[in-house]
């Protein structure tokens, strides 16, 4: 058992231990940032969505009318696309 060998054996865990600790503490910090804090709180609460749930706030009140209107323009113009949208509403369930 030579000293060099012992030293070598001892140095190896110390170096990897530091790296491992850094990694774990890094993960801890990340976990705190992502999971530790609450997720983004909705600033419009579900019970405040009365106006958004109103049928007149729907992005399209009737799908065949909306699609016909898009069709009418795209037939006569050179542009097309980026007209569809989904979302809004009461956010129920």
């Amino acid at each position, binding site marked *: 058992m030579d000293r060099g060998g012992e030293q070598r054996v001892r140095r190896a865990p110390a170096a990897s231990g530091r790296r491992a600790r850094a990694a774990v503490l890094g993960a801890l910090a990340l976990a705190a940032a992502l999971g530790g804090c609450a997720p983004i709180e909705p600033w419009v609460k579900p019970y405040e969505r009365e106006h958004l749930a109103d049928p007149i706030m729907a992005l399209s009140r009737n799908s065949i009318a909306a699609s016909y209107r898009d069709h009418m323009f795209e037939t006569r113009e050179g542009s*097309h696309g980026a007209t569809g949208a989904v979302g809004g509403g009461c956010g129920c369930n």
Partner: protein
Amino acid sequence: MSARRLLPPFLRTLLALGAVAAPALLAGVLPEDEADLMYHSYQGGDITVRGPSVLIRKKVGDSLSLTYNYYEDMISSASIDVKLSASPYHEIRKQNSFGADYLHGKTTYSVGYIYSKEPDYIASTTYYSLSQDMFGDLTTVTLGYRRGWDQVYRDLCAAPHPTDSECPDIINDPTFHQRADHWGYTFGLTQILTRNLLATLNYEIDTDQGYLANPYRQIRYASTGGAGFTLAPQIYPNTRTSNAASVLLKYYLPWRATLTGSYRFYHDTWDVTGSTLEADYTLPAWKRWIFDGSVRYYTQTHASFFSDLFPYANYSNFMARDRELAAFDSWTLGLGATYEFDIPRAPWIHKSTANIRYDRMMIDYKDYRDALLAAQYGAGNEPLYKLDANVLEVFLSIWY
């Protein structure tokens, strides 16, 4: 002799997506069971396109909603392009669309198929999309993909006839059969900003490959004698990539009305740039009525290979005179009314509405001229073309 004279090829069927794909409008909830019956009519520039559109939507179980739409265009055309180089015609285009929406938790998966057929054009499209609610249902992200396959044919007139009357015997040209392929990717984001304000962002990228031209439309180049110009076949590139991005804001006004503003920017590799600006106002009144008004402004720059009158034959590799690719400004004013009524003998119908909508579209072309007046003004000096069109939609909706 085909709807394709009027319409930029292949786009029409892609637009049917709206009818079947749009329904998942409320995030996290399947669309309601519904049946619609619509009559649509477009009249302008000596073209009349009319027809029905029927939609049926039904939930199957708790998580699946199925949609079917039948749409027809009955085309009667004696338009400026038709009069210039061909004969008036009548034609019917029929389209069948099938769609399914599947809701699982906060995700809606949608899939659909559209089949459009007319005597000289068959288009099939499939689409897939995924819609996800997040951040307390304030945000909805949608990703979509669609793939289209078109078979292009060309009609011929088998019997001689005077040019200003319809061909009595139309057949397919057996020597003409082309195809076109399309790919489209869409990204959409809907964000609730406040209790009264909603915003959406949409981005779309499309690629088209194959035969993208119109087998009937022609270009003209200056020549001596006669009308001062000679007609020649158009030559289109066989690829196109286009990008479109739009933003929309919808605001709930305190007296119960909504104001919507939207802007869309479009640009493609053919150098067409289009900007659309629209404002809509919706006002419910007297318990059963809802009124809508809209103003839309659109401006477009011409495709790089577009010219109303080319200086000489074979001027460039690609040449087109389609007015859809010209530079123009257009204003569209619209008014609509919805009336909600009860059907006492059918309690299984919990809501029904009668609707009417009128739009007046006014297009001022900046570099497309009325070539039919060449004899009077000289080729290239004819007045710039103007088009005014009346568009009507009348429909009945029931929710059961």
